[in-house]
């Protein structure tokens, strides 16, 4: 490792600053469990409708079935994505993206970068897009997607979504073979450097145990039903409160993932449960579109 390579948090700072300089709102992670940055309302809801929006945030992304008890150097139950939404996508979006790599210390004249076809689809969210995985010296460092549809709606403006896998990117920058060896911070005033493992290893170990062995299946089913019910109750109101309803969708989605990692969802149930989550997500998207349509805004002004 060279001393010049940026730490984990330096990389995060640099990316946030870079996108802040390009007009992005920088927010903190959404505080409900999600499987990907796309699911945070800052993406799922904000890409809907005709309002331009630019945002960037780090999103810890929980995927219970991907846990490996901290034993696999490249696989994590919870990894962190830096998510950028540029709505609408500017014509020079790829150049801007390449600029962000330079901003974190990658000299592209000494590396090999390729854009390989990789379209994205999330049936649970009624969402899909066209794009690439960006390969740097053979390593996938970013998922680049032009959103086409979300919540079942054709999008009025086409957002570009950039999702950087932070652990991979930092392991690459620091030239380490295990994400646990990433230097999170270098330490100041004689304090020792802090490694990724010191910050995150226990999460991986304990949550792997919980997700695969301990989570109470009947309780999870109950929770799923409760959150589903709550979501439906909110959506059935005359003027639904969309954001709280969407939280319920995220809860259901995460509980589904937990049940899945516990091996508690049979083949026959699986399709049905996915359909239940999808129905909620589409319902929320519809309510959001209704409550944010320009027509309604005009009505309010008149009143």
């Amino acid at each position, binding site marked *: 490792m060279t001393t010049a390579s940026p730490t984990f948090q330096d990389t995060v700072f640099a990316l946030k600053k870079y996108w802040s300089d390009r007009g992005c709102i920088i927010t903190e992670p959404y505080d409900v469990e999600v499987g990907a940055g796309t699911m945070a309302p800052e993406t799922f809801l904000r890409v809907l409708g005709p309002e331009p929006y630019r945002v960037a945030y780090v999103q810890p992304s929980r995927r219970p079935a991907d846990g490996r008890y901290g034993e*696999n*150097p*490249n696989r994590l139950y919870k990894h962190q994505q830096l998510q950028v939404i540029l709505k*609408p*996508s500017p*014509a020079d979006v*790829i*150049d801007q993206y*390449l600029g962000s790599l330079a901003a974190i210390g990658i000299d*592209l*004249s*000494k*590396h*090999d*970068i*390729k*854009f*390989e*076809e990789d*379209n994205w689809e999330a049936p649970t969210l009624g969402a899909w897009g*066209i794009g*690439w995985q960006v390969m*740097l*010296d*053979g*390593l996938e460092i970013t998922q680049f997607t*032009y959103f*086409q549809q979300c919540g079942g709606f*054709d*999008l*009025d*403006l*086409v957002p570009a979504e950039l999702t950087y896998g932070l652990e991979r990117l930092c392991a*690459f920058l620091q*030239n380490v*073979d295990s994400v646990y060896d990433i230097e999170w911070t270098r330490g100041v005033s004689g304090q020792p450097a802090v490694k990724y493992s010191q910050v995150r290893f226990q999460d991986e170990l304990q949550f792997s145990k919980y997700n695969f062995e301990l989570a109470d299946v009947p309780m999870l089913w109950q929770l799923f039903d409760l959150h589903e019910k709550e979501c439906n109750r909110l959506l059935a109101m005359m003027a639904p409160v969309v954001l709280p309803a969407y939280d319920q969708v995220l809860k259901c989605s995460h509980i589904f993932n937990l049940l899945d990692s516990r*091996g508690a969802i*049979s*083949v026959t149930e*699986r*399709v049905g449960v996915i359909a239940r989550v999808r129905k909620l997500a589409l319902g929320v998207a519809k309510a959001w579109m209704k409550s944010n349509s320009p027509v309604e805004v005009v009505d309010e002004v008149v009143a």
Partner: protein
Amino acid sequence: MSFPFLLEIGAEEIPDWMIVPALNQLQDNFQSLLDQHSLGGKVIAADATPRRLVIKCNGLLERQPDTEELVSGPPKSAGPGAAAGFAKKQGATLDQLITQTTPKGEYYFLTKRTQGQPTADILARELPHLILKIAWPKTMVWNGKGTERFIRPVRWLVASFFQNTIPFRIADVESSHFTSGHRILGHARIPVTIDNFDQQLLANGVILSAETRRLKIETEVTTLLEGKNLRVKPDPDLLHTLTYITEFPTPILGSFDPQYLELPSEILTTVMRHHQKYFSVEDAAGNLAPNFIAVMNTNADPDGLVRHGNERVLRARFNDARFFWAQDQKKKLEDRVDDLKNVTFQAKVGSYYDKTQRVSQLVTQLGGNPRAALLAKTDLTTDMVKEFTDLQGVVGGLYAKAQDEPEPVWRAIYDHYKPLSMDGEIPSTAEGKLLSLADKWDTLVSCFAAGLAPTGSKDPFALRRAAQGVVRIIVEGKITFTFPGTTPELSEFMRDRTEYYFRDVRGFSYDEVRACMAAGWQDLLDLEGRLKRVQAIRPTPDFEPIAASFKRIKNILKQASFYNAGPLDTALLEDGPERDLYHQIRRTQGEPLESRIGPLRPKIDLFFDKVLVNAPDTKVRLNRLTLLQNLLTEFSTIADFSEIVTER
């Protein structure tokens, strides 16, 4: 005077496998545009990189030729009023009209001249449609709902006609004479002319010619391996992909720790090829070497960072594979059979456990290896196959071998997805053939029963490929198989696939295939035998005349609505050609077709020449029809010869 034209569509990275078909369409459509508008000119070159489609033409006219058309007006007898009206309607004056005599009488005519439009105007009008008309497997919008669709966003357009730019726009992009170079090696806004286009691109890190890029990869790979006693494992598909995923390809040689060679080469190769797009390298003896070749999209790796990065990624991938291997061995394949209850084969059909039960039963009936059938699908529950899905079957076979299953068992599992393509090999062992056959046949029977038959071009469950595999294994593996549990719909489907196989894969002519299949097709080995016989006797001089006679017989019987032949009454036979024909048939009964045709032909010819089938005496007539019917039936066990297309 004629002029050159150049069109470049600049886009964000187009998926490699779509580029060639799109370029072909563009070239064809542009040529038709030139032809349709009489602009002269020919497309002389078409080339592409992931970021550009380019066509070059020469010989375009500056403008369309003027045209003259003779428009007919009213008859002269209608009088000058009608003529004036006609002239006015055509935007002409009365004195421009001429009269001509036609078969219907004397008529007014106007010679209408249309001035040709400038080529530049036509191109400016037509190019946007032409470009957006390219059919892609999947398109996108980038400017919002309802805007132009293309494979990826269009970012620049060069349209040069001699020294001018043809002005047009697609979405927010206006045509110009500025191209864009390689993302890293070139500039973003480069002025070009038709003459310096290729050189300017090259100076900006883009090799426009795919052929040159391919050659560059091949030559440099050879140089990299020179003197090392190593050679690249040929892989034309991968070479094609790499040619179209790069604008300036440069191969590099990387290596990995030889300890990974403990893993089966199938797994190492799959990781390198499918996940990393690397060529594998082997030594002189054909053993996998601890090296790989990656192809960069840039000109050099001055500090070795790219090689180092790729080696690092590959190490992680191999570590994963080794981890999966070790992990998967903790639970033997035989202990995974029950886990298949949780793996869906098809939602409407059930789990892989159900499938395993059915396939095992069928394999047993066919005399195959039930142990192989029981374990065949268990690798679907392994981490290795979840990660490297292309290796299904292969992983199962390798694991079975590692778990000391006997060779016939592990080989059968290893091979049971074969043949993977129309010209891919079929399983090598008898057990493998039967397992593959049973697996594919079960897929067909169960999917058809669940209403999942392919429709039109849609075949989401790859049932055509499965059926093709069934046909090939039966015929090429010489297996007796009678399509147990088939339905009329599936039977029709298999009939189609069988016809396709013998006609398009084996190259029998379509009428021979149709003729032989009309005589029965469900015993494929028998069918193949008959096809070979018919193909062999077809060039003999008596064959086509006989076939023509059979066609005639069939028509006669059809016209007489005669289908049920009773016993032939030999007493009713007339001496001469009729009785001769009868005797000829009797005498050679049981002899092979090949030796019967020659002597039979003159007898049939004579019969038709001299004997009136439609005899006035009903009994005689019916008897003659019976004679013909018998003749037809006897020869139709080989083929329905009336299906053979003849000159007569």
